């Protein structure tokens, strides 16, 4: 069921506050919520929380026969269906706009940007390859599920370890994790997504639209447009997506990209330290590489 639009007092208060560069939760306009990463008992199970927005990602792998067009590459499939758990406005079976945006963006950011090296997933050319399946579950939608889902997906891929495989002639032996340490995926680069929401300026004030990073649910509903940028810490832009909304000039877009570049470096540091901390905790049990 679609919820009713935000009330007029909420709308006016939010817009007036934004004109003075104040946000409802006290953040600066270009400050995002700090992500919290929780790793599960399995390798490849990650829960990412951006404030109250929470997304769970899980990676699993199995061995299949490759498609005849690409006998040397493995495959990655991404499932991201939003259930009514994220919010009661999502219905089962009918993809909402948000769901379509998230699915398409995840596809572009994680699959088409070649973040994971697909050729390294090949075991026996033309016969056996790894098929990775990344499932994204949106647990709670408090705004900006897209960034949360992309982050959870990237961290899950970095966290995942696949069983080691030995090929002798034409025979393939898969070693259990208890025999030989599982192997990490070969990842070219880690893209992170940043979403900015725009509000049309009131005619009396300055003519530049107001930009905020990482909108909350209310800000997302009242915004006049948004732009999502996916890039990695090496300053390479993977995806830049703007779906309608307030027109932006070139200087604004460049400014937004500069902000995103800075944030990407921070995010990379945060992710690396979280992954390292998790490995330290696991060393007692399973031998990992």
């Amino acid at each position, binding site marked *: *069921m679609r919820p009713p639009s935000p009330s007029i007092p909420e709308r006016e208060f939010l817009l007036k506050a934004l004109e003075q560069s104040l946000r409802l939760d006290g953040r600066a306009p270009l400050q995002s919520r700090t992500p919290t990463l929780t790793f599960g008992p399995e390798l490849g199970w990650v829960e990412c929380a951006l404030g109250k927005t929470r997304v*769970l990602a899980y990676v699993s792998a199995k061995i299949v026969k490759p498609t005849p067009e690409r006998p040397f590459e493995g495959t990655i499939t991404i499932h991201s269906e939003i*259930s*009514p*758990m994220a919010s009661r406005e999502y219905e*089962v079976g009918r993809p909402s706009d948000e769901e379509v945006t998230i699915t398409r963006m995840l596809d572009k950011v994680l699959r088409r940007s070649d973040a994971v090296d697909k050729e390294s997933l090949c075991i026996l050319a033309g016969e056996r390859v790894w098929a990775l399946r990344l499932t994204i579950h949106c647990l709670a*939608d408090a705004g900006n599920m897209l960034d949360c889902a992309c982050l959870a997906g990237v961290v899950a891929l970095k966290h995942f370890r696949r069983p080691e495989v030995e090929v002798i002639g034409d025979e393939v032996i898969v070693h259990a994790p208890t025999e030989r340490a599982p192997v990490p995926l070969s990842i070219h680069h880690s893209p992170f997504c940043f979403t900015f929401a725009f509000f049309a300026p009131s005619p009396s004030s300055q003519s530049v639209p107001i930009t905020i990073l990482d909108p909350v649910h209310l800000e997302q509903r009242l915004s006049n447009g948004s732009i999502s940028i996916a890039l990695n810490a090496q300053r390479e832009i993977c995806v830049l997506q703007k779906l309608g909304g307030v027109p932006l000039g070139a200087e604004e877009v460049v400014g937004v990209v500069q902000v995103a570049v800075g944030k990407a470096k921070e995010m990379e540091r945060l992710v690396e330290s979280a992954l390292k901390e998790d490995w330290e905790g696991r060393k007692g049990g399973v031998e990992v590489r």
Partner: protein
Amino acid sequence: LRELSIGYEGLDRVDGSARFGFGWSFTGSAAALSSISGPIEVRLAAENPSQATFEVLLRPLSNVPGTESKALASTIRNLLTPSIILTQNPRTLVQLVVQALIPAEKFYSPLVASIINASTLALMNAGSIPMRGIVCAVSVGRFRSNIMPTSSLILDPSDDELSSLQGIGCFAFLFGTGQTGGSEVVWSNWQSSISFSEEELIKARDLARGGAEKVWIGMKQSVGRVG
């Protein structure tokens, strides 16, 4: 019975949510997360003029929900319906969404028990749906025994014990008013690879009843911790 881990998630956009797991360590735990929204607006097609519509959605961790999810969701719906009073809010919808937190190709008994317990906790956490009682579930396994008919039944088998079991089942009990008495079986599901007798099933059920009481006490204690 493994140590129970109960948490009230406080998911933002739903009325009540809870997480339940049997055991909480790196050595395998059957855990599920459930959320309740209700009473909320219902689609015209699913509207019932005399009571609320109760909808259950079940999602496995890996892959999209398939036939087995739908079958189990319908079982859980029938299981939980006696415990909630639906006639209080006609023409509304009570929506339960359960997310399995461990990767499993099939929904095996300890996971089903976790799902039922998590759903009950979410209903309690929401507080907006009147309930008649609390449904607690626990799984029982039967060890391989080649000698005696007095086979060893084990309560809440863990993942490493699962491979040496000949039969496994899940029992759900409805605890009504009263301190410890008054629990009736709402649902049971017993699968065995060899034949079994009715008295063995009754023994398993009694063992499960004891386990379910412990789960019930655990739930009561967790509510005390929340405040």
